[in-house]
């Protein structure tokens, strides 16, 4: 789509502003349903943690706190660069927009790489989900539920990070091409909202999986 196509007011709207507001509303509803997708797993975590408090405590001591914490700061900072990318577009600064989007993409990829290193370390130790659990330091009872939830929650989140990076690459290419104007850049805004949701989910995952004592 070209800039002309995205800034055209569709027939059912009386202004571009209203058209964009409708798109934002759709995005917020989508983000709400995304939150509920994760909420189901959070509720499962709460239930199993109540059932196996000692086991969850012991298991979380084997989470990689260093990588988990670095990734927390990475995602928080990527949210800043995302917000600044949109801010640059509002000021009509194309090169700045592309630079901030590139930084956000780099942070996202960095997060994924660290996550892979973390998974590889766990799998080498035998900390694998479900029937594949082979960790000798802790009996599987209860602990395996933490480990399986750890993979489910962080895996689903990492998929969102990866999907977000793909969206950001597309947005960066469009920004480079000059598709976004200070008045019309709704795709960039919606992509930004999605990226912030990825940050939001991690804000809760980090204490629940890495910091419980």
């Amino acid at each position, binding site marked *: 789509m070209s800039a002309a196509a995205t800034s055209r007011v569709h027939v059912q709207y009386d202004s571009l502003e209203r058209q964009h507001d409708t798109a*934002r509303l759709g995005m917020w509803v989508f983000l709400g349903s995304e939150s509920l997708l994760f909420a189901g797993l959070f509720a499962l975590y709460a239930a199993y943690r*109540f059932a196996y408090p000692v086991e969850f405590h012991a298991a979380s001591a084997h989470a990689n706190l260093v990588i988990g914490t670095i990734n927390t700061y990475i995602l928080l900072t990527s949210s800043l660069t995302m917000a600044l990318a949109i801010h640059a577009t509002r000021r009509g600064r194309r090169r700045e927009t592309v630079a901030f989007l590139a930084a956000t993409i780099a942070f996202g990829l960095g997060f994924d790489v660290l996550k892979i290193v973390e998974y590889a370390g766990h799998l080498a130790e035998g900390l694998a989900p479900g029937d594949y659990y082979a960790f000798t330091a802790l009996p599987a009872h209860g602990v395996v539920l933490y480990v399986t939830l750890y993979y489910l929650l962080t895996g689903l989140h990492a998929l969102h990070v990866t999907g977000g990076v793909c969206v950001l690459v597309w947005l960066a290419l469009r920004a480079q091409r000059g598709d976004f104007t200070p008045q019309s850049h709704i795709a960039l805004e919606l992509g930004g909202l999605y990226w912030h949701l990825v940050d*939001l989910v991690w804000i809760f995952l980090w204490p629940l999986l890495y910091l419980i004592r």
Partner: protein
Amino acid sequence: MSLHPPPEHEHAEHTPGAAGYLLVWLALVVLATVTLFASRAVTGGWGLMVAFAIASAKAALVVAFFMHLAGGRPIHRIAFSVAMAFLVLLVIGVLADVGTRSVASSYVDEAGLPVE
């Protein structure tokens, strides 16, 4: 002819600006660091409460300022708040269930294994 009054172009005006975004990021980094140290200092049930309270504050900052919900249109706040309300209901419902099962614990021995 328009059936509704024209929108007030709120989005362009009510953004925090570059300095505001930096301030929010700084607050997020400080809160994350506080979470890290608090998790070592405060243990047990209170530790989880503290961690969860700080996480909620961080989430509120991201939603309000990075995602512009604070300066956005009310309908966007309503849509997201409804989802959050159901999310809280779901978690409270589950916690109320598992947290009040005093009977269930008598079905497991000290090793946590089920007793017939």
